[in-house]
Structures are given as structure tokens and as C-alpha cells.
């Protein structure tokens, strides 16, 4: 007998969990299907969790969720081969009662979140891959198939929360293939160190944590960034660049990460650690313009699968949770008014997102991806120029300061020219606006 | 052992009735007329423990009345035993858990040893578990090191968590202190011709019709086409670095020329390139060959624990940084698909006409 549910959620990442939790709490019969051995098993990475979006779903999460450290310090580094310069913001204000950002280890966090989903009443099935959507002649989605024997299940609505590579949506013709210039490939490692060593290296106590975001020559001229987060007993380090750039450039992400780890500013931070997890993952970075259709007759798309990532601010999981929650709330509202899950009725989902920070933020940066992609000087010339300028400025060598100023300005002009400098500034400003 | 909670609080307070337990016993594993070499290794190790405790070392021989048990007793003295306990009975012809457990527990209850050592073989582990449970005493499995502490207790050290850690385990307040010991870890003692010493013959009083389990056949390994990995002196194995299933043939050919066995890492079994009985490692076979050649295997801890006992490990890998270089003795930085056939040809040539290449 083929079972039927009110809703099926595909995937148990932050977006799928948010959706399944909200739906189950709302009293619907929910089936969630995850291909990993358990939720989070495919997400072996440390990450940053933005509290606010989770708080809206599970207000008491701070008491239960496996959180690593709350972030009290943010560094933004510009790196060339030898140096780093940048800002460094650390504040005791972040030691607040309800901190705003935490580092988490996804494998654990996802598992916890999934437990909440089960407690809320959803049926969660793991080690099962969704292989396709079932559509009636009119195109309405009424269920799906999985790779298990007797794998067909039906539902009024299917929510695709299956991550950046959403093959299901692509196969069902609901969205086009993701373009290489719209996804970044990030590689990441977990460097395990005793808690005390991490505290000492970063000047931390209790559960305080640090985030370092990096740009510059570490990406070998490609559009991308690097990062380092402190977890409880490990440090996550990683670097990501657009897939299209990797293709053009011929460099492998592993080579980049390796080089980054040997950078004199980073090596001492991770020295003597034991590397255990190595993960490569795609991040959708196409921004607003890359968002596909996110709803239709009997289906919705949430999270990375819908390209909901703010690359500039490294926000992904929060958009995932928000889109998951909003999609679920839309379904609940339709149900309570006795409406069907038609494309027309589900369009409320998109409207709600347009009215929220999700679409507004993504719109704000809609030009950034292409600007950075087309202007590689941001990842080559500028870091080097800045580093050389700082080096000139700080070196005490009997050269008069005026002369130093002239040299610094000169080097910028020589490299980019006046027009280049002005247009770069203009480009960034426009993309940022 | 599921919990490594510190039990340092546990102090030695040996109950009075256990104080009479004395002497070190080694179980001599006799099967089908053959003594497993681990038994001699244990006599060598047991000698050291007994000397330290200043107690006698005894061999325990259980077997059929066909002379093989007596021969084993004689050999025991050559390997250092002071005394031997012998139980001869037709019921003990083949190893079976019921009569052997009964024989061993009777012997222990009557003659009260303080230490009882067995080889960590299939037989030793099957028997030790039943005996220890019957005697309600502690048993430390698969040890790699034995010592006597200041309070005259046996300190048995063994790998745990798949080899990531070692732990030292004691049985403080119960006797005997039991341990099974991995074959090929302890040194083989020198055999010295010695006259038969004190033999304590103990009658075995079970009746065959009370023993439920019957051996209806024994298929010796030599007579069947079964993988002999665990016992092979030379093993050649391949991993994912071979690139494809077809390249496994190079592994098989080299093994054949060397008169050894071939094996593989787990992913090859998972991919269906090789049958499960060829897998080497934690969830596969543990091997202790003289020479192990690992081609295109990275050397993950689960693989490592299965091969560490090899006398000599040669890694063939394209990656100088592969973890296998941390425990291999020699490494050839080369493409396995090239190096393996080259080695096969070169070995065949050196070994002369007796070895012919396939095809």
C-alpha cells in the first residue's frame, strides 16, 4: 500500500528541518526523507549559526542545541603571500545573555535539530534517497519515488530542501541546471586541538569564539574567500571560490587550502592539530538573479536548493531556516483555510519572502557576484598593494614619511591607474548599495 | 570495557579464599595433533611472569588419548614449563566448547592458579569467554603486553578503540586472572631439550551423550579453496589507488609469483571489485605476514590495525604524504599499475624457472 502524507520534506539540513518542524508542530502528517545515514552525516563541517532565525522556530534552543562557542570577535583579513592586514572587532557586549552568533558543528547540530523534528511528530526516514517526483498529467506533483524497494510515497505537497545540487528539481524540470558561475566550491577541514590550546591561541575564555574571514591572494586570483572559525575543540578552516573560476584557472581547491594553511598568519593558529574531517561542498552564490522558480503545483523549494545564500555576509543556514519556516507556514495557512496546494495559492510563499530580509538582502547584493567575477584585481593587486603600503608605512628605516606616502600612492596608480582605481571604487559601491 | 571510566578507586582486597590461588598457567592449544605456536610463545612469556612471582609455570594440555597430548606435554617442558596438567579423553578429540569449558573449569577449581593465559585464537577466545563467565572472573582479551605490578597482580595491556589507544587492565579481587594474548606478539622461546617433568594427570568424567554439540566434519584449510590470508607469510594487497577492478589482477599475479595471498582494502569490497573474504583490516582479516605489500592503499587506521603485525611492510603509493608511510617500513613512490607488474616480472626472473608468469 502506498502511504500518503500531508507533506513530504526532502532533505534534513537546516531548511528541511525548519520546514518539517514547523509543519509537524502545526499538526500535519509529515514525512521527511534524508539520504545520509543520519541527519548531518553528509554535513561534516563547522559553521556559524545565526541565533535569531532559529529562535523564531525553537525559542529555547540555547538550552538544548549543541553549540560550540558564541562569537565575541570578528576579524576581517586581507592577505598577500606574507602578511595580513585588516580589522579586528572584539567586544564584551557579545558576551550577552542571548548571544547572536555561535559556531556549530553541523553533524551534531543537524542531529539535534532532527531530534526536535521527530519530537514534533514528523516521520523521519534516513538512508533513503529521493530519486524523482511523481507528477500527474497536468504537471501537479503528488508524491515521489525513492531508492528503496516499494519506494513510492504520496503527499499533498512536496518541499524540496535537498541542498545546492537539487537534482530532483532539475530532473523533474522544475528548474534549470545550476550554472558554474553561480556556485562556489568550498573545501574545509576540521583541525582538532584541545580546548585549552584554542583558548590560549585566541585569547578566549569559557565559550567565547572567534571568526576570521579572509580575502586576498589566497584564492590565487579567483573570486572567493577563506575562513577560520573556532569550535569547542576544533578549528574549521576552509576556502571557497566560484566553480567557473576553478575551471578557468585549473587550480584545485585542495591546493588552495593547503597553501592557505601554510600562510604565516594562519599556520601558527592551527599548528600541531589533528586534521580529521575533510569536506568539499558547493555554496550557491548566484544571488538574487539566480533564484529559480520556487513554487508550483504541489511543490516548493527552500534553502540552498533555491539559491538562498547571501555570499557577501556568509549567511546560508539562516536563510535556509527562514525559507523553510515560511514555506511551512504558507502550507499551514492554506490548510487552515481549506485551500489546495496549487501554484497560485503557494505563491504566497514567494510574496512573504519578498517582504522579508531574505529577498531584500539578496536584492541589495544582486550585482556583487558578477562584479567580483569580472574584476579579479580585488583578489590579486589590491591585497598585495595594501600589504606593501602597510609594510612601507610601518618600517622605520630613515626614509621620511612624506616620501613613503608618495611611494604608496604611486604604487597604487602604477598598478591600477587613476581610472582603474576610480572605477573599482565605483563598482564596489554599486554592487554593495 | 564500553566505558573507560577511571576505576583507580578500585583497590586490591583479595578475599581470603582466593589467597590459595598460585602459579601461572598456560593453556596449550592442541588441535588435530598440532600445537598452535601461540602456546609456546605464551610459555616463554609465562616463564617471565612466573619467575617474577617466584611461582611455578604450568602447561595445561587437554586432548585425546592418542599420544598427541602427551607429546604436547613433553614439548611444554622443552619450552619452559615446570609442570603440566593433563586431561586425556576421547571426548576431547576435537575442540568443542562444552567439554573443554568443563575440563578447564574443573582444573582451575581443583588446582587454583592465579594466572591463566590462552592464545587469542578462535579456540582460545571461544573457551576463555565461557571459562571466565563460569568462574565469574575477569578476562582481558587480545593482549599485547603482560606484566606483574608491585602488588603481584597481572597487568594486561591491550589495544582498544580499534588501536587508537592502549589500556592496561587488572583483575584485582577475583582469581584466576585471565587473559588471551594475540599470536605472534610475544617472542618464541628457545626450545631446550628437557626431560618430562612433573605431570599431573586428571581424569575427565563427562559422558559423550551429555554433550549436545557434535563435530560432524572438519574441512582442513589445505583441502579447500579458501582464502588463507590470515595465515599467509606473504600478502599483497591493493586499494583504491589501483584505479579500477581490472588492475587487481596485478596484485593477484604478484601474490602468485611470491607464493603468497592477495587482499584488499574495504572500499574494493564495497565496490564489488573483490569478495569480502579478501578484505584486510579492522572489519576484515587481521594478517601477520612476514612481508606485506600494500599498493594504492592510504593506510587508514582501520586498515592499519589489521596489518601492523607484519614483519615488513612495503607501501606502493603515489603520495609521499599518505598515512601508510607512517607505519610502512619502506615505500616505493610510484604508480601501482606500473610498479606491480614490474615487480612481478623481476621477482619471477630472480626466482628462476620454477616460477612461470601467467598467460
Amino acid at each position, binding site marked *: 500500500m502506498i502511504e500518503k502524507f500531508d507533506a513530504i520534506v526532502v532533505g534534513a539540513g537546516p531548511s528541511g528541518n525548519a520546514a518539517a518542524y514547523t509543519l509537524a508542530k502545526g499538526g500535519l502528517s509529515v514525512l521527511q526523507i534524508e539520504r545520509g545515514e543520519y541527519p548531518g552525516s553528509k554535513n561534516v563541517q563547522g559553521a556559524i549559526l545565526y541565533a535569531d532565525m532559529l529562535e523564531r522556530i525553537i525559542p529555547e534552543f540555547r538550552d538544548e542545541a549543541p553549540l560550540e562557542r558564541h562569537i565575541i570577535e570578528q576579524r576581517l583579513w586581507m592577505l598577500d603571500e606574507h602578511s595580513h592586514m585588516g580589522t579586528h572587532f572584539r567586544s564584551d557586549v557579545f558576551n550577552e545573555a542571548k548571544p547572536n552568533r555561535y559556531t556549530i558543528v553541523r553533524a551534531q547540530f543537524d542531529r539535534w535539530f532532527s531530534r526536535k523534528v521527530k519530537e514534533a511528530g514528523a516521520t523521519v*526516514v534516513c538512508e533513503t534517497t529521493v530519486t524523482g517526483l511523481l507528477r500527474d498529467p497536468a504537471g501537479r506533483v503528488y508524491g515521489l519515488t525513492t531508492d528503496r524497494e516499494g519506494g513510492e510515497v504520496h503527499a499533498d505537497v512536496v518541499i524540496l530542501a535537498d541542498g545546492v545540487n537539487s537534482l530532483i528539481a532539475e530532473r523533474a524540470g522544475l528548474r534549470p541546471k545550476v550554472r558554474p558561475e553561480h556556485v562556489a566550491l568550498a573545501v574545509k577541514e576540521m583541525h582538532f586541538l584541545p580546548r585549552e590550546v584554542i583558548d590560549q591561541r585566541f585569547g578566549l575564555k569559557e565559550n567565547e569564539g572567534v571568526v576570521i574571514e579572509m580575502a586576498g591572494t589566497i584564492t590565487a586570483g579567483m573570486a572567493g574567500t577563506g575562513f577560520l572559525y573556532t569550535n569547542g575543540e576544533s578549528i574549521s578552516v576552509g576556502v571557497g571560490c566560484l566553480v567557473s573560476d576553478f575551471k578557468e584557472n585549473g587550480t584545485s581547491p585542495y591546493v588552495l587550502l593547503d597553501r592557505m594553511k601554510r600562510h604565516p598568519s594562519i599556520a601558527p593558529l592551527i599548528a600541531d592539530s589533528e586534521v580529521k574531517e575533510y569536506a568539499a561542498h558547493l555554496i550557491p552564490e548566484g544571488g538574487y538573479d539566480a533564484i529559480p522558480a520556487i513554487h508550483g503545483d504541489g511543490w516548493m523549494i527552500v534553502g540552498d536548493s533555491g539559491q538562498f545564500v547571501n555570499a557577501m555576509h556568509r549567511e546560508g543556514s539562516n536563510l535556509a531556516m527562514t525559507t523553510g519556516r515560511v514555506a511551512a507556514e504558507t502550507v499551514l495557512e492554506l490548510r487552515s483555510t481549506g485551500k489546495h496546494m496549487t501554484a497560485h495559492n503557494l505563491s504566497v510563499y514567494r510574496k512573504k519572502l519578498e517582504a522579508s530580509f531574505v529577498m531584500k538582502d539578496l536584492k541589495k547584493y544582486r550585482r556583487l557576484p558578477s562584479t567580483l567575477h569580472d574584476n579579479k584585481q580585488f583578489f590579486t593587486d589590491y591585497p598585495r598593494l595594501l600589504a606593501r603600503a602597510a609594510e612601507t608605512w610601518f618600517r622605520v628605516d630613515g626614509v621620511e614619511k612624506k616620501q613613503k606616502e608618495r611611494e604608496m600612492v604611486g604604487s597604487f596608480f602604477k598598478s591600477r591607474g587613476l581610472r582603474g582605481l576610480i572605477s573599482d571604487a565605483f563598482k564596489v559601491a554599486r554592487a554593495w548599495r | *570495557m564500553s566505558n573507560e571510566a577511571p576505576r583507580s578507586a578500585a583497590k586490591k582486597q583479595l578475599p581470603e579464599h582466593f589467597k590459595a590461588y598460585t602459579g601461572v598457567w598456560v593453556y596449550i592449544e592442541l588441535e588435530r595433533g598440532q600445537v598452535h605456536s601461540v602456546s609456546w610463545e605464551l610459555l616463554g612469556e609465562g616463564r617471565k611472569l612466573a619467575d617474577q612471582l617466584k611461582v611455578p609455570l604450568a602447561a595445561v594440555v587437554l586432548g585425546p588419548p592418542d599420544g598427541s597430548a602427551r607429546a604436547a606435554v613433553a614439548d611444554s617442558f622443552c619450552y619452559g614449563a615446570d609442570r603440566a596438567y593433563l586431561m586425556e579423553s576421547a571426548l576431547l578429540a576435537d575442540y568443542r566448547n562444552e567439554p573443554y569449558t568443563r575440563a578447564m573449569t574443573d582444573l582451575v577449581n581443583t588446582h587454583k592458579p592465579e594466572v591463566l593465559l590462552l592464545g587469542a585464537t578462535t579456540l582460545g577466545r571461544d573457551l576463555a569467554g565461557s571459562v571466565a563467565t563460569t568462574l565469574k572472573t575477569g578476562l582481558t582479551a*587480545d593482549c599485547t603486553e603482560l606484566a606483574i605490578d608491585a602488588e603481584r597482580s597481572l597487568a594486561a595491556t591491550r589495544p582498544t578503540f580499534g588501536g587508537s589507544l592502549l589500556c592496561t587492565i*587488572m583483575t584485582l579481587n577475583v582469581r584466576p586472572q585471565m587473559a588471551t594474548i594475540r599470536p605472534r606478539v610475544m617472542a618464541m622461546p628457545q626450545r631446550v631439550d628437557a626431560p618430562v617433568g612433573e605431570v599431573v594427570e586428571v581424569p575427565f568424567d563427562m559422558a559423550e551423550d551429555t554433550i549436545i554439540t557434535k563435530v560432524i566434519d572438519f574441512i582442513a584449510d589445505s583441502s579447500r579453496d579458501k582464502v588463507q590470508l590470515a595465515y599467509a607469510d606473504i600478502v599483497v594487497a591493493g586499494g583504491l589507488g589501483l584505479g579500477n577492478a581490472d588492475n587487481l589482477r596485478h596484485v593477484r599475479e604478484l601474490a602468485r609469483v611470491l*607464493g603468497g595471498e592477495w587482499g584488499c582494502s574495504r572500499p574494493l569490497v564495497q565496490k564489488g571489485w573483490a569478495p569480502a573474504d579478501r578484505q584486510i583490516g579492522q572489519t576484515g582479516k587481521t594478517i601477520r605476514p612476514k612481508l606485506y605489500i600494500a599498493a594504492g592503499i592510504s593506510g587508514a587506521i582501520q586498515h592499519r590495525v589489521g596489518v601492523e603485525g607484519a614483519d615488513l611492510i612495503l607501501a606502493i603509493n603515489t603520495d*609521499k604524504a599518505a598515512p601508510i608511510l607512517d607505519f610502512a617500513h619502506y615505500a616505493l613512490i610510484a604508480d601501482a599499475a606500473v610498479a606491480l607488474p614490474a615487480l612481478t616480472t623481476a621477482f619471477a626472473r630472480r626466482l628462476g624457472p620454477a616460477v612461470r608468469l601467467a598467460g
Partner: protein
Amino acid sequence: MHIVVCIKQVPDSAQIRVHPVTNTIMRQGVPTIINPYDLFSLEAALAIRDEHGGTVTVLSMGPPMAADSLRRALSIGADRAVLLTDRFFAGSDTLATSYALATAITKIASDQPVDMVFCGKQTIDGDTAQVGPGIARRLGFHQLTYVESVETIDRARRTVIVRRRAEGGVQVLRSELPCMVTMLEGSAVVRRGSMADALRAARADVTTWSAKDAGIEDISQCGLRGSPTVVRKVFAPQPRKEKAVLIEASAHDPVHMAEATIDTLFAALPGLNAELHAAAAR
């Protein structure tokens, strides 16, 4: 047939780390799995159930989290799951573990008699291979360890024939039910449950028993108190100081590479040369 399969949830040893200072296991972030050996036993039990009918009950002793492993066993096809969880069990060695499990099996058998108990050959964390024999002894079941295959079960006569791995060969044993069997690794390919199994497992209740629920009256036989063995110290193995010696040979000249390698091996293992020749002559 009523078959009980004992499964243990263990940390995935692939991901285990040792704290460099305290030498304790760092469990943080280490996923847990069903002890891989137990899956071969589970598969053997399911195959017997499929052939002879009956019920497969999976049993585990461990923290509440171990319910996840039991649920996974249900999704593979087991019918029923029981979790033994109690603070009294903490620190159990194999003697105490077999006591608790055997008592629970007796309790399970009071509803429906148990014909067979399956255990894994050994665990990947404890690695002792003692719990199965311990259970057998306590229950008075016939003990069949290192079984390659269960050949036949005659339910009328209550006999069972198995092939058991022994040193130097395979014993074909005839025994009787009830018996305790541990399966050898690689004895079968573990099946994947159907979608219906997966759904059933996701919804199933895992019966959770405390020591008392399981009918354990003598707490002194459980946990630390019931464990005759004492862990004195836990430490990291000495890493081998030297890395592998690289064999100097031209990567472009396979012949030279092979010759250099063979020379190295012969020099390192005196006697290898002679042994190979002797073997080749045979």
C-alpha cells in the same frame, strides 16, 4: 523462531581522536554506528526468520542515544527493539554486560521463548569477543562462535548445523536450539529494508527497560561493581618514530624500480630470498 540479536552502538572508530594531553577519547563530533560485526549477525538472523518465520528482536544495552541504532536495525528489517538503559550499567565490563543482557533475554523469553541469540563476533571499541560466550554460558545456550554459515535448522528436531571457523579449518557442527551464535565478518551482504520497513522503523517505539524493568534484581552484578576487571590506565601507543624509508628509484624506469625494491626487501628481511626460492621449488 524467536531470535534475539544483540547489537552495540559504538563510536565510529574512523573518527576517533585521542586527547594529546589527557589521553582520553575525544568523543565530540564522533558519530556512532552499529558495531559493524553485529550487522552480519543481524543479517543471518533475518535470513533465518525469512525462511522459517518468526520474530527478530534486537537488544542493546547503552545510553538512551543507542535507540538510534536499534531503530536503524528495525529499518533493516528487525521486528522489535529493546533498549536496556540505566545508570547502574555504567562502567560494565564484559562479565557485567553479559549478566545484564542475559537477564534481559530471559525477560524477553518470558513473553515468547527464545530459540537463538545472535551476537557480533566482537565489537570495534571493546574488541573482546567475550560478551556472546558470556551470554551463552549464563543462559545455558549452546555456544557456536565464529560461524561462517548456518547451514540447516530442523525446527521439529530442534537441531542446527553450522560451519564454524577453527584454526586450520572449518568445523561442521551439529548442535541444538536454543543456541548462541556469533557470525564471522563477510558471511553475508547486509540487506536494505524496504520503504515500508523504513517507515515502520521511523514510527516504532523502542521498548526501554531500566535494570529493574529487565528483571535485574542483583544490582551488584551490574556496572562497575559487577565488573572484576579494572582499567588501570589508558594511553596512546608510541608512534613509530621513523617514517617509511623511500626506495630510491627512477619513476620512469620500472625495471630499475623493481630491482631496487627487491634488493631493499632482501636486505631488510634476511631469509626472504631463500624462503621464496624454497617456496618456488615446491
